[in-house]
């Protein structure tokens, strides 16, 4: 009797599951062509996750859907942690979202496998001209120089600092026009190291992108491509410069708190509020966490990117791409043109606390004011150049298998700079040879 009941219940629930799903394999990639009266349906996979950013995304999609009854967009919220596993499966299965939010490092691999549409000859002129070439370079890949996405948000590395501690130490506050050099930064860090507090914290749980982006301050590119198109790793004097300077702060000057080395990006914030260290070199988006979490009366300031031989930093962009399997690429592009226009990019940048690529958006008053360091953050976009590693096939494997452990060991003082360089090059080249 019990077994019979169980069978009946299972059958009922399975039926309920099938009926209650509410979804069908419809949307832009459906194999069924829409009837004449039916609107084109597009799936938009978004990775926005901060409250303001999700609200901005939803509002823009809603505005589009109201104004365009013939092209209806479904907003689908994804997750940064798993998006590439999700996309590979959906690409291979022939059922990807039509419009895909991702970041530029992921695009090279997807583009080489033919998953993404080359937008080079399809981009609307206004959208193309509103975004500088340096940003387009972050999404341009392959021998054909295909453009596999529209870059719309970028991150620069700035310094978030405890203003009271800076004022008390009477150090010069740098400006966008007159930033600190790395030498000045080292001196200031030493000056701020007193009474058990440190000048700076370097959270280096994921040290590779941060190190490589900052290495461009001294022209360090870490990769070189010969005439035959073969890419190898190089760690010369330019590449070693930033590594050595960070190491010196931790182990020689002792102006950087060694216990923060193993921390993730946001982990040092509690210690920062408590005055355990005065400065945090971090991505611009971390300002949002400071605004939300900092104790009352805590005064903080955003300082511009440091200068080596230049203030250049490697740029990684957040992007929107169109799936090669999309049944409605033209409609997807129309939606993207609207979604990424100047005013909308300003809303998205403000919601995510990042920098817009749109020239029009960059002058929007909402992201250029002094409040919360927006003026410094937005101005730092001029320091961004394409990160050389974006073009390297096999970078992800080099990063996870070689560079991450090598840099972690180096910053922890377990191996010398030459040993780290040897690992990065010799083991790294073995990895790249496979690509």
């Amino acid at each position, binding site marked *: 009797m019990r077994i019979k009941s169980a069978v009946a219940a*299972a059958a009922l629930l399975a039926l309920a599951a099938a009926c*209650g799903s509410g979804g069908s*394999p419809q949307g832009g990639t459906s194999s069924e062509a829409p009837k004449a009266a039916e609107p084109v349906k597009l799936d938009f996979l978004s990775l926005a996750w901060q409250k303001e950013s999700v609200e901005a995304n939803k509002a823009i999609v809603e505005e589009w859907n109201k104004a365009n009854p013939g092209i209806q967009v*479904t907003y689908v919220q994804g997750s940064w942690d798993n998006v590439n596993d999700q996309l590979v499966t*959906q690409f291979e299965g022939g059922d990807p979202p039509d419009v895909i939010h991702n970041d530029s490092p992921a695009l090279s691999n997807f583009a080489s496998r033919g998953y993404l549409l080359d937008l080079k000859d399809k981009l609307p002129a206004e959208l193309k001209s509103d975004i500088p070439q340096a940003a387009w370079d972050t999404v341009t890949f392959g021998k054909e120089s295909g453009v596999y996405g529209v870059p719309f948000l970028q991150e620069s590395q700035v310094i978030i600092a405890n203003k009271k501690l800076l004022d008390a130490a009477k150090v010069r506050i740098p400006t966008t026009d007159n930033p600190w050099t790395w030498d000045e930064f080292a001196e200031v860090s030493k000056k701020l190291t007193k009474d058990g507090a440190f000048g700076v914290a370097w959270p280096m749980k994921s040290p590779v992108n941060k190190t490589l982006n900052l290495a461009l301050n001294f022209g360090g590119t870490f990769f070189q491509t010969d005439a035959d198109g073969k890419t190898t790793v190089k760690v010369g004097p330019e590449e070693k410069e930033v590594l050595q300077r960070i190491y010196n702060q931790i182990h020689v000057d002792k102006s950087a708190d060694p216990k923060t080395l193993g921390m993730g990006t946001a982990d040092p914030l509690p210690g920062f509020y408590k005055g355990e260290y005065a400065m945090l070199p971090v991505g611009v988006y971390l300002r949002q966490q400071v605004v939300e*979490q*900092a104790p009352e009366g805590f005064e903080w300031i955003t300082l511009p990117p440091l200068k080596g031989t230049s203030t250049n930093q490697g740029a990684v962009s957040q992007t929107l791409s169109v799936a090669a399997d999309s049944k409605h690429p033209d409609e997807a592009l129309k939606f993207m043109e609207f979604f990424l226009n100047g005013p909308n990019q300003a809303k998205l940048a403000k919601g995510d606390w990042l920098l817009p690529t749109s020239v029009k958006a960059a002058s929007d008053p909402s992201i250029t004011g002094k409040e919360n360091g927006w003026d410094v953050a937005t101005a730092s976009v001029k320091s961004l150049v394409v990160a050389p590693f974006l073009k390297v096939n096999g970078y992800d494997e080099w990063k996870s298998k070689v560079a991450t452990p090598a840099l972690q060991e180096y910053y922890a003082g377990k191996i010398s700079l030459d040993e780290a360089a040897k690992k990065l090059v010799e083991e790294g080249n073995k990895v790249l040879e496979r690509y």
Partner: protein
Amino acid sequence: MKRFSQYVALAAYMVFLAFPLAWLLSTALKTPREMASTDPAWIPDDPTLANFTAAFTEQDLVGAAVRSLIVALASALLTVVLALPAAYAMARIRGALSRVATGWVLVSQVFPFILIIIPLFMVLRNLELTNTLAGVVVVHVTFTLPFALWMLQGYVRAVPRELEEAAAVDGAGRLRSIVSVVAPLLAPGVVATLLFSFISSWNEFLFALVVLKDPDVMTLPLMLARFTGPEGVARLGPLAAASLMATIPSLIFFAIIQRRLKSGLMAGAVKG
């Protein structure tokens, strides 16, 4: 004294088990400022329900919980319904086929999920089961079935053959002896399998992420992931509040069904 030390050990184990839940509750009631404090406290200075409000207003947690419940219950029941007769056959019918089947069940456990996710997705797509809860149920049953079979097989083996033989002597046919004699004795095994299948399905994330595209069909783990960002940065408050709510249905299910987890049903069934 022995009993006292047993209670102490039990209490310590309870504290160990309850710690994550208690910390989750504490975090869910804290403001972002208090969460960023370097001196964390168990009891928030300024308790707030804002995290619960944010979790429930920003995401369709109730709808997702209902969908998760449908998927988990359907997966658990289907798994047991399919595994029970198969486990009986594997345990009772000796032969080459039984040994091969047992070996295959074990081998299937060593395949990493990620290896077969793409072919599985393509199969579901051909069956028009992508973006449906039924598709997720099929996947979850597929993945819990081998272990469920293995578990139930052990319970079937523990039922003495003599009981079935005694039933046969009394005139019961095979089906009758299975239904009236074996099945009731397998209740603890069925309950354990149900719990295992339910919890596996309730928590499953990756397949649901890949199979479900439409926001209206997404399950609870997918909703929780929406509070996390890149590089381990997350909106801890709403995430803790939502995670706490997500544990409640499985706790209730466990509380209801665990009473059936009895031992000693077969004690004294066979003499000598």
